[in-house]
């Protein structure tokens, strides 16, 4: 691109940089502040003296966190949920996306299935009928209540289907000539070349399961079974907010600010660990899926 280096152009460059840096700082500083609070002394934290760097640096809150068995239990519930939920999501997504990626002439009922799925994505019975179904199946207070209702991530299926569609038919035909069966084609040819798309939708599934706090609130009667996100959400409900007696129980022990900050920081760590690796996939994967869809 041809750019004159006139004064006006330099000035607009400077303004662009300043605005972008402010936007970036706005995204970053609140997180950094939370991290700093978790490493600060509790008096400084209570008095709101912590800015971007810890005040009275210490690891007290992390050593307290280490001994907090309820936190780690919630952490384990979330790990369990992510493994079961993502596993199920991925298996079902692949199984649904592959037949749907075929044309109507190859799979005559394709459009019927597609319409059923789109209808299920756009219309729902609502929160209460779903709650009653989960309750009626006896899933309340089990990990399955967190995993099964969202077993089919329809949006992800559509992303994956579009990716499969972009794989040339000739590849499949060649494999069939060589005597490969349908499952062999799916697992040996489609899945390996679809790694970017699979990485994208598995990231969505992992993050979605890790971050969801509401189903924990909805389907778990006892706070002991809460997944981590629900546990963290309950920390936010501080004393000043309570009018609801059902929340009192969960708040019996109001912990101090640095400990809560440490809990929040630790709960973000898993997301921080996987996200940069998958970032390069989801930008391309998401765009391919959504623009062609």
């Amino acid at each position: 691109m041809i750019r004159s280096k006139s004064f006006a152009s330099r000035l607009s460059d400077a303004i662009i940089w300043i605005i972008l840096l402010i936007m970036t700082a706005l995204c970053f500083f609140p997180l950094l502040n939370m991290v700093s609070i978790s490493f600060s002394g509790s008096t400084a934290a209570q008095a709101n003296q912590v800015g971007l760097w810890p005040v009275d640096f210490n690891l007290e809150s992390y050593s307290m966190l280490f001994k907090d068995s309820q936190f780690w239990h919630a952490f384990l519930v979330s790990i369990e949920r992510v493994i079961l939920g993502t596993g199920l999501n991925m298996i079902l997504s692949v199984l649904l996306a592959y037949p749907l990626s075929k044309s109507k002439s190859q799979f005559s009922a394709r459009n019927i299935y597609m319409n059923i799925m789109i209808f299920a994505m756009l219309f729902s019975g609502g929160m209460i009928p779903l709650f009653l179904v989960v309750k009626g199946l006896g899933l309340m207070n089990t990990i399955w209540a967190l995993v099964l209702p969202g077993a089919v991530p329809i949006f992800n299926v559509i992303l994956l289907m579009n990716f499969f569609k972009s794989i040339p038919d000739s590849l499949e035909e060649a494999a069939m000539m060589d005597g490969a069966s349908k499952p062999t084609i799916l697992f040996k040819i489609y899945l390996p070349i679809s790694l970017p798309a699979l990485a994208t939708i598995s990231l969505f599934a992992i993050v979605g399961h890790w971050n969801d706090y509401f189903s924990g609130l909805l389907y778990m009667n006892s706070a002991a079974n809460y997944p981590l996100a629900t546990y963290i959400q309950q920390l936010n409900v501080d004393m000043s907010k309570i009018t609801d007696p059902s929340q009192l129980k969960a708040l019996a022990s109001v912990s101090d600010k640095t400990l809560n900050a440490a809990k929040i920081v630790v709960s973000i760590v898993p997301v921080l660990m996987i996200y940069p690796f998958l970032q390069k996939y989801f930008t391309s994967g998401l765009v391919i899926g959504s623009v062609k869809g």
Partner: protein
Amino acid sequence: MGRRKRRTGQLGYHLMMLPGMAFLVVFSFIPMLGIVMAFENYIPTKGIFGSPWVGLDNFQYMIQIPDSWDILRNTLIIAIGKIFFGTLVPIIFALLLNEIRLKWAKKTIQTIVYLPNFLSWAVVAAIVINVFDYSGPINNILQGLGLHPIMFLASNQWFRKVMIGTDVWKNFGYGAIVYLAALTGIDPGLYEAASMDGANRFKQLLHVTLPGILPTVMLISALNLGSILNAGFDQIYALYNPIVYETGDVIDTYVYRVGLLGQQYSFATAIGLLKSVVSFALLISANKLSIKFANMRIF
């Protein structure tokens, strides 16, 4: 022979669809049958088939109580605010980022601004509560400017604004991905031609860049239309409190609070049903419109 081979191939496809469809039947379509609860006075011990039929009573009650209108108003104000600023800010951000030539800086900025999108509202709520605290950073700045501190999350004047603002904060980076992709799709030749014709950067923006991303903007806006009754349950539930029910209670939080916690199952299902029907109709029309005018389909 050929015909039989095709049939067996299709049976395999049906078998592959089976597990997913089974889950959809149980957790999507059976709950849809639960909609009949909206037309009866559901009593848990009697079940859906045993509860007395009341016709449209639940809907009539909905129209009569003043709560409903407050909730509809709150939902629309918050949702429209989020849709408007949640479209505008990502576009501006994408346009600005597109002007940057330094690859590593671009990458770093992107990584940081995408991040909040990947955090739970439970976590973001904690951050928001911390930032907007009565003695928190924002109120410190206000006091530094000689203004009075504000209890943002316990103020009916501020609650909706904070909801819209924090939602835009969480999602603008991620929302910009689609626009950044659309921007890279614009033919560089167009810029060269424009600068040959003497267009400066602003003119190029106006006549090349904006028309280039317009279809994407329209598609995303059409898509957002379907969520006009979704003001964002996770966020609002994590941040609101009884003081701001007046301005913060939206359809989904009301359904949960009154319907599930208050056990008014039928009434809440009626509200939920109305919401589902309106959202569905909006999305279908948006899809029709975008096929007709932008030649793009949402689904």
